[in-house]
């Protein structure tokens, strides 16, 4: 084992600070200047300005760069990022699957990218047709009668679904009494945050030893003050909620609504329709299940499907098909329903709609079913291949993600965070850490269906090597990690205690310190 022990070697110090292909890059404020530009503009014609008393005395104090300098700056920055295109990105609950480039090409067709949201409806019939067809696919895949397309991301879709529920309760005249929203303790943080935003009181439901909602505890909490449950299915432990139909029935009987967080729809798309489970509202992350790129944290898109109990309350705007083509219902007065209002300016994330429809048409009904099957197969393969050396808190089969706790690290001096950072040196993006909260030192691995068996085999072998190394007492491999990334561990405490949130010239910083 001794020759396996990593020798801590300081990397060669270079004169430039660069390390071959890892190039240091300053901030634009340190390399650009305000009179430099990478854009050639036509001269400004003489006019009598009509700016009233609002003209600024000087140009903004922001640096510019010529085009070659700007490209070099951003390309160097890009090289400090891990990405799906470069390697496995098994972040649980994030569904980091391949982003097909056909989708990018389609979204950039001028017919979609170069049209204005408020130009006459007669001049955007193809755009409305695309939205209508996307809606058809989403409704059919979920067996739900309606979908609100406008929410801008998952949490925004959640807000939309809960707003529809609130509007339905208000229409029943029960807003004063139905104040409680049941949220499992394993839920995404956005769920309680959304419920609280709408003035509901969040009531946590415990999990059972199985990693699922405790059915008895849930039923005990039901009452005529319950507005809704917010349940993720498959849940954040990567498990299908076996009692989901019973939960829905009991909830409906008690007069509540069923909100399902659709973040994990990738596990069941094409195989299970949420409408068949008794769900009343569910957001769909187009940036997860339907492959629109995550873009370093957005833009996302969170269309929200609604049951017949909530359909009438869908927000503005929405597309309708008429005899003379498609129309856009943008105002309450035009609507035959009782829309609860507007989530956002304009009509939603059209760029994401195009990508998602391109993805759906590419896979088709058969391919989407295969997506779910391969995603679940890959996750179970990882679980089965690692559960003898890592500790899985719940029995399988899992759905699209495999959950481990830190039991296997006990006594090694290595924690979940260290284990994750060591994966970085091995060329992997770590899995989701410390989530869900119901498991100690959680590690949630979601490989997705777009990883090959060879990739998974190497990943599995690497994790087994790391476990062996931790058990062998090679603690430094973990606690010093990452050593080979563009940066070693960053001091997050310092960032929070003395927040520096923008660049300031040295003299400004000195003045601020005085």
């Amino acid at each position, binding site marked *: 084992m001794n020759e396996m022990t990593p020798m801590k070697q300081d990397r060669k110090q270079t004169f430039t600070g660069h390390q071959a292909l890892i190039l240091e890059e300053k*901030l634009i404020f340190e390399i650009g200047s305000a009179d430099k530009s990478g854009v050639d503009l036509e001269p400004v014609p003489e006019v009598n300005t009509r700016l*009233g008393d609002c003209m600024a005395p000087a140009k903004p104090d922001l640096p510019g760069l010529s085009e070659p300098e700007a490209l070099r700056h951003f390309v160097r920055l890009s090289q400090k990022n891990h*990405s799906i295109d470069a390697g496995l990105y098994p*972040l649980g609950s994030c569904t980091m699957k391949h982003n097909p480039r056909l989708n990018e090409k389609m979204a950039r067709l001028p017919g979609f990218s170069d049209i204005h*949201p408020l130009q006459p409806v007669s001049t955007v019939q193809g755009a409305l047709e695309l939205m209508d067809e996307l809606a058809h696919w989403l409704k059919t895949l979920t067996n739900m009668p309606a979908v609100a397309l406008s929410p801008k991301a998952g949490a925004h879709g959640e807000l939309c679904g809960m707003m529809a529920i609130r509007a339905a309760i208000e229409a029943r005249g029960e807003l004063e009494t139905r104040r409680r929203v049941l949220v499992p303790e394993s839920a995404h943080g956005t769920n309680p945050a959304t419920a609280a935003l709408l003035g509901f009181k969040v009531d946590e439901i415990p999990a059972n030893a199985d990693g699922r909602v405790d059915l008895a505890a849930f039923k005990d909490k039901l009452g005529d003050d319950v507005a809704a449950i917010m349940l993720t299915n498959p849940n954040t432990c990567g498990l299908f909620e076996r009692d*989901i139909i019973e939960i829905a029935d009991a909830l409906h009987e008690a007069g509540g609504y069923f909100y399902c967080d659709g973040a994990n729809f990738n596990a069941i798309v094409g*195989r299970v329709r949420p409408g068949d489970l008794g769900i009343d509202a569910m957001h769909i992350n187009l940036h997860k299940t339907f492959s629109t790129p995550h873009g370093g944290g957005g833009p996302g898109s969170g269309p929200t499907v609604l049951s017949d109990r909530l359909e009438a309350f869908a927000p503005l705007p929405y597309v309708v098909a008429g005899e003379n083509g498609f129309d856009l219902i943008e105002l309450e007065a035009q609507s035959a329903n009782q829309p609860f209002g507007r989530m956002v300016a304009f009509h939603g994330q059209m760029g994401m709609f195009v990508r998602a429809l391109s993805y759906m048409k*590419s896979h*088709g009904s058969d391919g989407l079913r295969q997506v779910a099957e391969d995603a679940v197969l890959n996750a179970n393969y990882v679980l089965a291949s690692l559960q003898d050396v890592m500790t899985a808190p719940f029995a399988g089969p899992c759905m699209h993600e495999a959950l481990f706790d830190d039991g296997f690290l006990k006594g090694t001096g290595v924690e979940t965070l260290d284990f994750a950072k060591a994966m970085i040196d091995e060329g992997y993006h770590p899995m989701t850490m410390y989530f869900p909260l119901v498991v100690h030192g959680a590690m949630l691995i979601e490989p997705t269906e777009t990883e090959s068996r060879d990739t998974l085999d190497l990943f599995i072998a690497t994790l087994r090597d790391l476990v062996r190394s931790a058990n062998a007492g090679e603690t430094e491999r973990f606690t010093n990690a990452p050593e080979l990334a563009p940066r070693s561990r960053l001091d997050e405490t310092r960032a929070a205690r003395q927040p520096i949130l923008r660049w300031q010239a040295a003299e400004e910083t000195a003045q601020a310190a005085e």
Partner: protein
Amino acid sequence: MRYLPLTPTDRGAMLSRIGVNTIDDLFIDVPEAARLDGPINLPPHQSEMQVERDLFAMAAQNKTASTVPFFCGAGAYKHHVPASVDHIIQRSEFLTSYTPYQPEITQGTLQYLFEFQTQVCELTGMPVANASMYDGSTATGEAVLMAHRITRKKRAVISARLHPHYRGVIDNLSDMGGFDVASPADSVNGVEDLIALIDEDTSSVVVQYPDFFGNIMDYSTIAREVQSRGCLLIVVVPEIISLGLLKRPGDMGADIVTGEGQSLGNGLNFGGPYVGLFAAKEKYLRQMPGRLCGETVDADGKRGFVLTLSTREQHIRRDKATSNICTNSGLCSLAFTAHMTLLGGQGLRHLAALNHARAVHLADKLEGIAGVEVVTPAFFNEFAIRLPAPAEQIVEALAEKSVLGGVPVSRLMPDSDMDDVLLVAATEANTEADLEIYETALRDVLKGVSA
């Protein structure tokens, strides 16, 4: 299926490693009543070429902004985006990366977010900015909620000259959250008495700059009056390029500035994705929504960046979070930062001046048409005109002549008694020839109306 690497042989071998016979054995937790035996009734998979055919056909039915004289604005603007911006945002490492939760291998994203925050601070004249919101409208809704939290009051006074969709977002959040809103009567060019509407339960006053009708005014006096009554002034900037030429909201005394950043780096995209801007005074930092990127050092003492102050956020604070936002507009903020970097301060000033010059020329030309009145006294690149006929009808007639002539106010404010008012925007994307075509087309259309 071209996106799925597993072969039937792989699948068989993997199932046996797992110790099950068929894929169905992995779905045993699904209640029987909900198991589907076969594919859902939707079309089967298609080749790249087939998908392209379908989508080309839909795209071809839309009239695009670059192919006609184009004058629509009202919160979304046609600008030229340099080719290199799209190349930068399509780098795999930016496009296919997640929120930077592992900072050691996402310094690229984190550094551009830090640059983005700094640019937003400088443009708005505010000391702190976040790493973006979904868009201008949702940023504005969050700003009102933030003002309620800071002041512990629950009523917002909103200018009737705020974009009606932004107003709709605030109204909806207020309805749902149990808050109140108040507004003066609608007005095309009148000065509003917002101060008179402030009462002891008012947290904030929301104004737009340039406003929905294109008008610009200095809000310094209003800021002082609002603040002397214990309220916050929220200034909404729908067209960020205007700040290349106009006084900054921060210099006027704004407490919170929100904005739509689409004009820098991002196309029209039929309304989204766009990029919401959010900036505030430093003392309100810990009440801000959204992600914040901060500078720090690594274990070797090298400068690096991380997401910070996350104790405000939903994944830590859950039901006590400042907002439920998680994903924001990462890639759109990169487009913003890349475009802004290519322009530089000098370039932005030039671009803004060009926009203003085009708009002034257009206003001069349209004012020369009998029956047409420019009703916006001072403006940047968009203004309102009063027509001798309903604006929706004129816009349709112009569209038939392949001129997209603007946005009728009635489409967004049907009850405002402004059926004859049209919003018209001009940018650097319009040539002088476009302006002449518009003038001629409008003259022709109006002749038809009077005849």
